[in-house]
């Protein structure tokens, strides 16, 4: 995949020609690659998605920068090579003869394999480090996360997906449930993502958080918002009719503003919280008799999906 630089050593070439293709290709490739890498890393890199709103987003952006920088010489090399072939290695008019036969070259093949293997293994090590160091890099880690933020004050937020909306519960504030997602800046957040019906996917785009919402499964993802602002939340797993319209917006606010908002909301929704099923990491809609009343009060249109009683074989 990588450098085509070794190619010029191919035997049988070069003799009787004035142009040394290998040298020219190597020089042009080196110049373009160095320029391209610098541009990608320093000019383009800071603007790559998903930005730096949280530590997981920043780590993903860093990954994109590194991968983009590594990919640049490869892309330039292959495109340059085929472009060169198009420009200089064409059949001359009237020349019906074949080209010089080269069946292979063990040294070039070995070099190629070594270089690509080194790059690939390097990227795998880099990716593993970048996965583990920022606590799972914002991806859903399932019910027993193995990479956690090193902090004792993690804000727990439960994300409940259902057709076709997300609601959020804050267990550290009495377990109130709301359609508004607010987070404090600078504090690690654990998203406990679950679903009531089909598979959804909680994608907080600017925060670099993505976790599938599976029915009956708690899927935990971590991030730490770095600065205040709004972010978009979209459902990223096809979940039925209104999947395309399943999005909302969240806010990262200052810790003081968050505390004020959470306390106020907890008080305001106290009566509704009392009607909710007790906070739990997963919910079985067939077991919650009171759930039906709540969505209407929250302004939701209802689940729409086939909730059914396991004891009833009439329903699939």
């Amino acid at each position: 995949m990588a450098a085509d630089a070794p190619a010029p050593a191919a035997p049988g070439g070069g003799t009787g020609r004035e142009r040394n293709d290998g040298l020219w290709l190597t020089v042009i490739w080196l110049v373009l690659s160095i320029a391209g890498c610098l541009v990608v890393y320093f000019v383009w890199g800071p603007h790559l998605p998903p930005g730096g709103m949280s530590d997981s987003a920043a780590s993903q952006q860093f990954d994109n920068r590194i991968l983009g920088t590594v990919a640049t010489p490869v892309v330039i090399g292959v495109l340059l090579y085929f472009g060169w072939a198009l420009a200089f290695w064409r059949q001359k008019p009237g020349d019906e003869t074949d080209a010089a036969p080269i069946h292979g070259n063990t040294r070039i093949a070995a070099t190629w394999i070594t270089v690509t293997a080194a790059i690939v293994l390097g990227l795998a090590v880099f990716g593993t480090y970048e996965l583990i160091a920022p606590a799972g890099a914002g991806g859903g880690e399932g019910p027993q996360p193995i990479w956690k933020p090193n902090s004792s004050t993690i804000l727990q937020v439960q994300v409940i997906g259902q057709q076709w909306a997300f609601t959020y519960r804050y267990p550290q504030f009495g377990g109130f449930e709301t359609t508004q997602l607010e987070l404090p800046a600078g504090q690690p957040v654990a998203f406990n993502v679950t679903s009531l019906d089909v598979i959804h996917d909680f994608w907080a785009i600017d925060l670099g958080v993505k976790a599938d919402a599976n029915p009956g499964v708690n899927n935990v993802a971590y991030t730490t918002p770095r600065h205040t602002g709004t972010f978009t939340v979209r459902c990223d797993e096809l979940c039925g009719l209104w999947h395309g319209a399943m999005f909302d917006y969240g806010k990262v606010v200052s810790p003081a503003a968050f505390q004020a908002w959470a306390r106020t909301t907890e008080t305001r929704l106290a009566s509704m919280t009392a009607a909710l099923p007790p906070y739990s990491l997963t919910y079985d809609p067939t077991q919650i008799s009171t759930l039906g009343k709540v969505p209407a009060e929250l302004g939701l249109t209802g689940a729409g999906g086939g909730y059914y009683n396991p004891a009833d074989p009439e329903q699939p």
Partner: protein
Amino acid sequence: MAIETQPESAQTPGGREPGPMPRQRPWWLRPAFHTAIIGAVIGYVFGHWLGNFIASGYQQGAKAGTNDFAIILGYVFGVIGWLAGLGVFNELFMQMTGRRVARSDEGLVGDLARYFRYSLDHKVVGIQYLVGMLVYFFTGGLFAMAIRTELLSPTYHVLSANAYLMVVGEHGTMMMMMMTSVIVGPLGNYLVPLMIGAKRVAFPRLEALSFWLTPCAYIILLSSVLFGGFPTGWTGYAPLSIQAGEGMDGYAVAFAIMGFSVILAGFNLICTIICYRAPGMRWSRLPMFVWAMLTTSFLFVLAVPVLIGGLYMLITDRTAQTAFYVNQLGGSNYLYEDLFWFFGHPEVYILALPGFGIVSEIIPVFTRKPLFGYKVAAAGMFGVAILSFFVWQHHLFDSGINPDMRPLFMLTTELISIPTGFIYLVAMGTFWKAKLRLTTPMLFAMGMYVNFLFGGISGVFLSDVPADVTAHGSFFVMAHFHYTIMGGLIFAFFGAVYYWLPKMMGIRLNQTLGKIHFWTMFIAFNSTFMPLFAVGELGQPRRVFEYARSLQTLNDWVSISAFCLGGSLLIFVFNFVMSTVVWRERETGNPWQARGLEWQVPSPPPPHNFERIPVVLAGPYEYGDPSALPVADLNPPAGVIAGALVGAGTESRSSAGTEA
């Protein structure tokens, strides 16, 4: 274990010497397309009645008035009726009852009717597949046009939400499911026997059956439109697929039938390639395209049964009220995801390897050089095929399954770029100081390398777990696999059609129109899918009909490019129809001065391919080597087969049953 001697059974289609001509029935009484349709209708009606009869109480929803049992049994019996009407079972019953099996319609070159019959000639099946695959491909393409029309505006909707999901599902499933055979079907079946010097394939009935199942899958998949479509896209994730309406039954049955089709095709090709090679066609002389067909066929028979098992459980969940995928009842949606992707990732390489094979076959001809690193190319294909079974969980990086396995699957996924890199090493080595002939097939081959480069590089981003957290499930993924499959496989497919159509039909496609087709398609393709990488990274999930207003400019650009892409394919349709029906520019020889064994016989090939089994003397890529022997002795003197090993001259010592 190359079999260097002539197989014991006579190599005639059907496995027997042609008997005396039986009494000819009038054409409308002979089993063919029209009787198959009658059989399918009768079968469907019967199955539907049976389903209602045995399971009248089971309904998808209370008072829905629908019964998934009836629909699924209708489909199944419809397929059986279709095959019975086609005459698939006739010879089976004749042999079971001890009657003489004789076929009257074999070998009648120029008889158009045999293309509508259950023909056992691999060349007929190849043409049937070619036409079928083009129909399926353009049907899927029309759905893509509908998707891009809807996405012209972030909020204004041309299609209803349900119609949009239906179109997305039909497009995705049509392309991923029917296109599994896009090269193995038409080109693999047609060319492999010609390339390895055989008069027929190993299992002509399996091969013909594999084709005649594809129209069933196509019709059944389309029929789900009548039931409101299915909302799950081509992945069919449970429990949404269990919740979905009756359209989902069409998805499950059609996918399973297509699965059976490719498994049969795969078995046939594996046995043909291993057992039917001509004397002297050693593994080290096997054309790259045949290597690609062999690896793809192994993926077929190893991966697709898993899909069929998964779909079977989905069907029982939907009908017999099992709960394999229902969490609340003790099942798991992860089970479906695992089963699906254990098939689904090899499937992706099923859609890449044939493309590698085709371009590796085309570039030596038009660079006028031997393939650089023959063994490296074969090893690359095998490496990709083997590794493809160990990467499937990279589709589930954010699903919450097995977080501790992520580094492993990240590693295996990235390892695939090493054998994929072999393919590029081979290409670049072959291009080194070549004498390029920029014919239409060559342009498509080079376009494939350029497109697949972007597809492969973006795949490295997706294999990296942190970067994948953003890219997963977004338009980035969508752009990535369109680059590998459409930019790779479909470009290679069109290159192959331009390259081998003179062989298959004896007719040359117009080269000027071909070049216009290539350049418009190449530019429109890149203009369509390159911006989608950005669209995905900027936060647009797949399969949505509403998106951020800030992304409208990019989406409109993509939509307009996609319409141009559709237009460029119309150039191909025009060229194909005009060249094969109206202009009919004959091309019976070897128009590309290729060394491949398939080009050493007239075009189109005679009924039994070769007068006698040829003796292969040299590899197919010895361009520019004045000392190279001709590729094969097409008319070896009697008795030379046994001595063929000595006849190979310089390589006599190494050829005694050993392979490279």
